[in-house]
């Protein structure tokens, strides 16, 4: 058994896939170094990230398979599941063998698995578009903490750039300690940790209470259905919702 380890970055994963082809090996697993699980039988290879190599794999997926496949691969990578690297590798091998039509082979486990996870990541991206709640802070900065299951904070940037171009906003993935910052002109994605308490602006409490009141009034009492509510809005998202948490 041959295990490849990469540094956890997307470039690292693609480098590992490049190396597998370059060395003529077929690793049975490709794992991020952080998800290390001790195994006595495995032969371990540590892959050093080379952007030149990862770039070649990137372009090759796009041109030899399809943009759709590239997107699937990236989304599965963002799921951060321990086996994501291995599944991507197996998916791509099939893709390079068969070509872009292979995405229709849904009865093949390798394809179906990647599609399902990619869909789940995309689903959470879409869900978070609605569930992000900005709080207006002192200095007119709109700040939204989130704690998504998958690493989707980067995927929501285009949506909010188009929607709030004239507003300063921050979207903060509290668990992964990363954030998107936008100052009305440019944006950046980087590490973020809040040490101090945030300070709300003057009007903020008013609109929060209006929103809570609205949320209460819009429900039809004769149809109350907490189970359906939780199904649509899982409890893990409640923490940062004005109308539900705090």
């Amino acid at each position, binding site marked *: 058994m041959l295990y490849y380890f990469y540094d956890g970055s997307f470039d690292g994963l693609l480098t590992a896939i490049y190396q597998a082809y370059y060395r003529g090996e077929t690793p049975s697993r490709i794992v991020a170094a952080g998800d290390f699980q001790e195994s006595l039988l495995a032969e371990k290879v540590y892959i050093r990230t080379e952007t030149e190599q990862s770039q070649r794999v990137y372009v090759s997926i796009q041109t030899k398979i399809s943009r759709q496949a590239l997107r699937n691969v990236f989304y599965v990578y963002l799921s951060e599941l321990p086996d994501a690297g291995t599944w991507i590798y197996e998916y791509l091998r099939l893709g390079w063998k068969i070509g872009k039509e292979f995405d229709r082979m849904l*009865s093949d486990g390798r394809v179906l698995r990647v599609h399902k996870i990619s869909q789940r990541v995309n689903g959470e991206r879409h869900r978070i578009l609605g569930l992000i709640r900005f709080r207006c802070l002192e200095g007119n900065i*709109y700040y939204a903490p989130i704690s998504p299951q998958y690493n989707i904070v980067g995927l929501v940037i285009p949506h909010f750039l188009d929607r709030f171009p004239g507003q300063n906003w921050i979207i903060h993935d509290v668990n992964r300690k990363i954030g998107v910052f936008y100052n009305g002109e440019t944006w950046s994605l980087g590490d973020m940790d809040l040490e101090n308490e945030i300070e709300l602006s003057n009007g903020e409490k008013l609109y929060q209470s209006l*929103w809570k009141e609205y949320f209460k009034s*819009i*429900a039809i009492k004769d149809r109350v259905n*907490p189970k359906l*509510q939780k*199904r649509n809005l899982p409890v893990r998202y409640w923490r940062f919702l004005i109308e539900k948490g705090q």
Partner: protein
Amino acid sequence: MELLDKLKILADAAKYDVSCSSSGSNKKNKKDGLGNSCYSGICHSWADDGRCISLLKILFTNHCIYDCTYCINRVSNAVPRATFTPDELVDITINFYKRNYIEGLFLSSAVLKNPNYTMELMLEAVRKLREQENFNGYIHLKAIPGADNYLIERAGKYVDRMSVNIEFPSERSLKLLAPQKERETIIRPMSFISSKIIEGIEDKRKYKKAFDFVPAGQTTQLIVGATPDNDANILRLSEALYKRFSLKRVYYSAYVPVSSHPNLPSISAPPLVREHRLYQADWLLRFYGFNAHELLNETHQNFDIDLDPKCDWALRNIHLFPVEVNYADYELLLRIPGVGVKSARRIIASRRFGSLDYADLNKLGVVLKRARYFITCKGRYYGGINMDVHSIKEQLLINAKNSRSLDSGEQVSLFSLYPDLLSTGDKLSSITGEL
């Protein structure tokens, strides 16, 4: 009056309007503007009744000159009343939007003084949002029946979606419960909007800068269970509305008893299952190629409460089954109970690479619990029972019952005010309206 109290009264009065979707419009933001819209629509929260909150759904006023028996805002009802000013409404909408609470505004209203006066106030709020605040989010506006066409036309240039609620499926029911309204005043604005939409599309072809008139189309709503109309009438009406006015959606609203009046039925809980069956049938009309008369006709006027409309139809047309999933075309696949639009497409796509096994169907999202009795796979029938109507029906009912009892096992909850009649999957789709 405090803004908070107004919001409370006017949101509470708006809640019986079902529609909350923000779909169908794909506007990009403008320079220095605020907001855009997303074609698929985005849900922002889910209220305690499990319905999604996408728009700020609110009445402009609940002062009403009419006295419609079924409506909580009728003039003879003793409820607190309030009216927004256009500026208050604009302020709430913009500030909710900036905090990403909502996708936009759904503005409806009771009729204050007269239809034109009300429509002008609503128009003013919408105009301010678009022109003064440069707001490009979603706006759904109710057209007030009886308002002049020129007001509707002006409003249509600002908003994404318009709707007029028919409420009652027949003229007779309308006479009974809303004697001051006439069917004609409801249908007229609908047909006006629909003709304007067509005109707008043609203009757009000729001139690049032409206005988008109501780009997300128009919708309507029907109340279910307040009148003796049967399901067949309702479904035929929906079909006609889709065909004649190319409506985007017809919404069905289970009647929630809000008053006791000799003309109203006395029911203890809203007829949710019936509402759900109508939604299922509505989907069959729009996405599955069914006609209303196939589902319901003179001899079969109401849906089976225990079976979904597609299973019901399949059992009445058992001579068309079993269908071989490896050969059937798309239209036929869609008619199999347990196969939906997504799974039918997946079947078509993946069987080009080799024939499908029975086990593959599960992976592709086919609900075998229902589908197994109606298909063959590589020539083999997997139903496990005789293929006759009675045995299949019996089996389907047992399956449905089992999933219900599993549900209610978990639902020992003080908050549950109405009996759990539907299986979870059913309830979910009935409300989200997702495919």
